[in-house]
């Protein structure tokens, strides 16, 4: 029997690749390591090999063929040492959408139970504890006490709900983001609420692992929870949560959720434009790192720049077109699979910022923040890394 996830209709794109190699040029992982296994095409070739033997030409001619162990052995370090940043898809001229194929490939590998041990752990953690860190989900809101957030509403009904991602909830370096966002929402006296300990992981990590079934379950739970509280606008500060809830939930649950999804920067910019938030320009050199899930894959590119230009007279781009920057290395579970590779990728990004004289390197995603901090530490570079929500809370004198 052919493994789950190899439907021909879905994978027709795989056979459309003409090997022109354009997807290889901007791959951030390969740029940092120059190890050919990190390139996109070796992934698609292995995937095609599996496809041809189980559903494609070989299977049609000779019946379904077993997949050799060496294929899996080679697939793990190429498929999972990838940040799923989507730069290959951005470069592809033939509608192959390579990075979506990597999701499909991970789905197949999960169905065959060939995923790396670290990802197995995360998969089971999400399934059992509803967050990838294996923490008791009842402690999801504990950061509120640690950081001393005074007003932390968990209401039955509210217009706005703040979806605090698992990383902002459980990782101390990212908890400041949730804290800052809550301070901003409080200071504006908005009708808002946390979702509390009933909130589950957004499901993005499950899809990255290839566990589509769990992703569906999480999506359904979260949508029901959010809708039961009459929420009109869901605010998120994690780029992964943002894209998965906004772009993937509809397909996962089979209907359009009844609420609007906004990243923190979109909400803040809207309030700035309505005159409800006033920003003051200062002179620091600020550079903005686009989270892949938010910019390249999520389409939010101008909003953070508009905010940062109102905060600093010295805003600089890190090179390349806005929204098409190099990945920080923080995506696709690369940290769990091979942290050394992630650190190399992160160092490249931090190095680019340093080269342009950036003093404060700003991002809008907890994974990016962690990666950039680790990268600067590894490279021994002196610059500040902040999330845009933290920077805003500081500039608004809320911290």
């Amino acid at each position, binding site marked *: 029997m052919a493994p789950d996830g190899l439907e021909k209709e879905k994978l027709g794109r795989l056979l*459309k690749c*003409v*090997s022109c190699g354009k997807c290889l040029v901007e791959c951030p992982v390969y740029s940092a390591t120059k190890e050919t296994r990190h390139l996109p095409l070796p992934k698609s070739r292995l995937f095609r090999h599996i496809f041809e033997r189980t559903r494609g030409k070989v299977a049609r*001619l*000779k019946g379904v063929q077993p997949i050799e162990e060496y294929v899996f052995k080679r697939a793990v370090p190429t498929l999972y040492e990838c940040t799923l940043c989507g730069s290959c898809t951005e470069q592809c001229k033939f509608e192959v959408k390579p990075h979506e194929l990597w999701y499909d490939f991970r789905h197949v590998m999960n169905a065959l139970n060939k995923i790396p041990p670290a990802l197995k752990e995360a998969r089971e953690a999400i399934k059992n504890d509803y967050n990838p860190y294996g923490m008791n989900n009842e402690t999801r809101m504990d950061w509120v006490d640690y950081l001393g957030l005074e007003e932390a509403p968990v209401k039955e009904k509210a217009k706005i709900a703040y979806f605090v991602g698992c990383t902002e909830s459980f990782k101390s370096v990212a908890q400041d983001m949730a804290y800052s966002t809550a301070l901003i929402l409080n200071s504006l006296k908005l009708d808002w609420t946390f979702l509390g300990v009933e909130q589950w992981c957004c499901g993005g990590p499950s899809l990255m692992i290839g566990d589509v079934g769990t992703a569906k379950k999480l999506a359904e739970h979260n949508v029901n929870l959010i809708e039961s509280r009459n929420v009109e606008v869901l605010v998120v500060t994690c780029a992964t949560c943002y894209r998965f809830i906004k772009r993937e939930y509809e397909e996962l649950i089979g209907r359009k959720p009844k609420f609007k999804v906004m990243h923190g920067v979109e909400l803040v910019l809207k309030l700035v434009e309505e005159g409800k938030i006033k920003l003051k320009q200062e002179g620091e050199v600020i550079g903005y790192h686009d989270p892949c899930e938010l910019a390249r894959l999520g389409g939010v590119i101008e909003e953070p720049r508009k905010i940062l230009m109102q905060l600093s007279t010295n805003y600089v781009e890190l090179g390349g077109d806005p929204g098409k920057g190099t990945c920080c290395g923080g995506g696709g579970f690369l940290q769990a699979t091979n942290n050394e590779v992630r650190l190399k990728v992160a160092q490249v990004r931090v190095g680019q910022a340093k080269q342009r004289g950036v003093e404060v390197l700003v991002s809008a995603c907890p994974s990016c923040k962690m990666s950039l901090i680790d990268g600067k530490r590894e490279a021994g570079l002196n610059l500040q890394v902040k999330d845009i929500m933290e920077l805003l809370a500081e500039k608004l004198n809320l911290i």
Partner: protein
Amino acid sequence: MLIKTITKTVILKSRGSLTETINSFLYLLLEKNALKWLLAPVKDESGLVHPELLSREDDISRINTIAPLIPGENMGTTVSLLTRESPLKEKLGVILRPCESKALVELAKYRQISTENLYVIGVECYGTYHVLKYREMLEEGSNPSEEMLKFFLDRGGDGGFRSSCLVCLTPKPPYSDVNICYLTSWSAGEVVLEIKTDRGLELVKKLGYEAKRKATEGLLREILEERRKEREKFFADAKKELNGVDKLNEFFEECIGCHNCMEVCPICFCKECFFDSERYPYVTRKYLKWRLPEGTVLLPNSKLQFHIGRTIHMGFSCIHCGLCEQACPKEIPLYKFFGLTAERVQKLFNYHPGENLDEKPPIQEFREEEFQEVVG
């Protein structure tokens, strides 16, 4: 398998378009059960072609054998995927361009292809466009097949073929059972099937075709003469351009080390390339620190080592399909290098890759008398 050359032909009268006329033959192959399967270039909705496996005659209309394009994979490689592990149990016909049929022959010599139950239906080829150019042509609304034919007939269409095609001297597959020829005959509304082997003859007899003796080469000979001169000039220029380490380093300066030229090369069939293996890379921490913003830096010699190493591995059997050049994301004119080195080594050994299954590659055979000036 011994190939007996028979110069018999079958004339197919026009059935509308050129593709329809050729496809009427392919249709009969499946309908009359002469073959069970066909591996052929099939058109997709965007106008590109991809190799597909067909078994129902109803699907034949999707085949486009003349599309001047090799999309990403030499079909010799596709045949290897299908027959490498075990021979075919049912008859499969594969429709191949000259350089694809040559790749098949070389791969068979290295036991990467089993020719049992395999029928090669060759297609005459005057040249193919770079896949990016082909795509542009489609977007601009022009028809690449017509452009190619027009250029062949009166230099009217677009002659911007890939560089390896412009100097190719084998417009007809040297190894095949039947060749589909149309370049010289289609202006008179005919497609000519050249029968090359007994198996080929059997095949067309099953379809009820009558094979007659006929020679059809006139125009091609002139064109080949022209090409021969172009080929000499091309390699003479390449030799000048690539002479010496400095010039080679300059030539490969843009290379990002992606090894895509190796990945698409039909002769590079190794399961794991030495240059991708753990034995190859060496750590250059110091350089890495200095050049942090660009990431890891490839030193010029490392790029050169890969390309020279690769040509040493595959140069004997290079069948000059030029896919290495099409696959280079940095658009380095790689055929100049790989074609030149292969051409010279093949001349040294008087080896003709892809022409005959019985001609052994130089690395499979020792001849005592050769290179006396070196070993003597």
